[in-house]
């Protein structure tokens, strides 16, 4: 049986560890120092790591089980909303309207009491559990119906896209009670720590890095288990797997749910670092971009997915800052390049080159 931590996983985790240790140190240095990292950059890097978690989540269900979800942004956003609701409650009476019982947007809408689905979110552990449970439950119910009816392939992709679009429209409505168009924002602190304090930012960054490492290890553990082999079997020859006595729908629901919960976790870590969650996160384009990250990094490699996300969002940040009009063209070009010349993504390319170099000397010796 394959090992839990192979070479590429080991290298990535080591690199992640070094960054996680160095970034907090560099951020405490004098601003004049060449390697100092300004405090405002830390949440940005934390955000990138959240995207990496999201990419790992999608790779688990797309790369290994062949479930191409075009709606993973929805699970991410739901996790984000769950934590966002808690952060709203933590504002308390410090809002613009200084209402101790209601968030500002509810006062603005003229509501006089908290809707029932906001109950419990005052308590952080409840919100934290909900950030995993709500995306998980949605994925479970959705998957249960879809996979039992044997919806798969393109049809599944389309309905997951419809799912996130439907949620986008729903969350835009003020009547939903999630802040409508503006979403949830103006957060002050989390668990009593100010969100703008450098120490809180560092803590959230480190937490996100740990979450990424944990998700990678969990996803890897699933894929190297016998269940993971069944998932690949489903991906490659679904009916063969059925005739062997495996309930394909149960495996699909399982991996889809785990993946959605990981996406929810990514969203939950994202919101305190960017300071806002709004319905825009449900936009279908966001979900499609996740697919691009995974494809670019290397589908079915987990580590590759994380690298893909980091590379694309880093390029995106740089391009949108310097050549704002070019980004979408660059994204499209990137996708075309991957599809045409890098079927196994960045990781596939790196390993191919390494393999070729390792093999080359042997070849030259052969004729002699």
């Amino acid at each position, binding site marked *: *049986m394959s090992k839990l931590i192979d070479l590429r996983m080991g290298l990535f985790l080591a690199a992640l560890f070094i960054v996680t240790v160095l970034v907090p140190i560099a951020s405490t240095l004098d601003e004049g120092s060449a390697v100092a990292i300004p405090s405002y950059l830390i949440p940005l890097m934390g955000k990138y790591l959240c995207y990496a978690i999201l990419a790992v989540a999608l790779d688990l269900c797309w790369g290994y089980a062949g479930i191409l979800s075009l709606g993973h942004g929805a699970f991410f956003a739901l996790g984000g909303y769950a934590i966002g609701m808690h952060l709203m409650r933590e504002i308390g009476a410090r809002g613009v309207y200084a209402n101790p019982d209601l968030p500002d947007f509810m006062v603005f809408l003229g509501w006089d009491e908290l809707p029932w689905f906001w109950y419990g979110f005052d308590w952080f552990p409840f919100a934290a559990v909900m950030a995993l449970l709500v995306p998980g439950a949605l994925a479970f119910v959705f998957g249960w119906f879809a996979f039992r009816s044997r919806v798969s392939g393109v049809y599944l992709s389309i309905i997951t896209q419809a799912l996130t679009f439907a949620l986008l429209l729903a969350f835009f409505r003020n009547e939903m009670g999630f802040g409508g168009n503006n979403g949830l924002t103006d957060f002050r602190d989390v668990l009593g720590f100010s969100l703008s304090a450098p120490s809180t930012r560092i803590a959230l960054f480190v937490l996100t890095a740990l979450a990424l490492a944990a998700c990678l290890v969990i996803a890897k553990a*699933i894929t190297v*288990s*016998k*269940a993971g*082999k*069944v998932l*690949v*079997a489903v991906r*490659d*020859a679904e*009916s*063969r797997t*059925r*005739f*062997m*006595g*495996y*309930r*394909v729908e*149960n*495996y699909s629901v*399982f991996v889809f749910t785990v993946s959605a919960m990981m996406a929810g976790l990514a969203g939950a870590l994202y919101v305190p670092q960017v300071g806002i969650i709004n319905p825009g996160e449900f936009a279908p384009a966001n979900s499609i971009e996740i697919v691009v990250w995974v494809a670019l990094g290397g589908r079915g490699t987990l580590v590759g997915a994380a690298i893909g996300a980091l590379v694309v969002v880093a390029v995106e940040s740089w391009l949108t800052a310097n050549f704002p009009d070019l980004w979408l063209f660059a994204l499209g070009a990137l996708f075309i390049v991957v599809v045409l010349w890098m079927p196994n993504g960045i990781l596939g390319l790196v390993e191919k080159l390494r393999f070729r170099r390792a093999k080359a000397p042997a070849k030259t010796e052969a004729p002699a």
Partner: protein
Amino acid sequence: MSAQLFLDGVHRSFDGFKAINNLTLSVDKGDLRAVIGPNGAGKTTMMDIITGKTRPDGGEVLWNMSTDLTRLDEAAVANLGIGRKFQKPTVFETHSVEDNIRLALKAPRGVFATLFHRSDKAEEARVTALLDQIRLTHLRTEDAANLSHGQKQWLEIGMLLAQEPDLLLVDEPAAGMTDAETMETAELLKSIAGQRTVIVVEHDMDFVRALDCRVTVLHQGSVLAEGSLDHVSARDDVIEVYLGR
């Protein structure tokens, strides 16, 4: 003697075409049975109905004279002890040969059972023995995608054996095999019969002859003749619909 598998008046039509038409067939435990018939005779549809892939429009398929297979899905039928080999060899291409066998081994099929599964010595010994039997030991860690057509056929037969089914449904096992491999396959199936029931669908007459067993001739979705190969191939109606063409 009661039949292990009993198809009773099974019907199935596709867009008005009667693929299976009042098919009645009975196979006893431990039998080796060859099913032959021209293209479109309903051989594969019959397998689909037995294994739960296709629901018949009418009729019953009884397992051990008690369970009606037509109410079950593929996984449930497989877990009753009915294994199937496809016409086109279907193995898990990105898995190694040994992993293909491992996945097929008789074991709990639930998600959590496999998630926390640990392989032990008995399992490894079983994998080794099966690989030996299908002569793929030297290719143990090779990806199944790299096997030749004939090797894939053997691997799929190995996977079928790993499931330890009571009934094996084997669809054209000799397709794409060399003559020597074909004869070896026939010997293998003959050695399995007795302890397990084997139903073979086949076109290759030399192969059917080598099986040396009772033959059922299907035509237009129902049984045209049944008996030894010599008996059925001597009948005029069989010659007309099948052998004569």
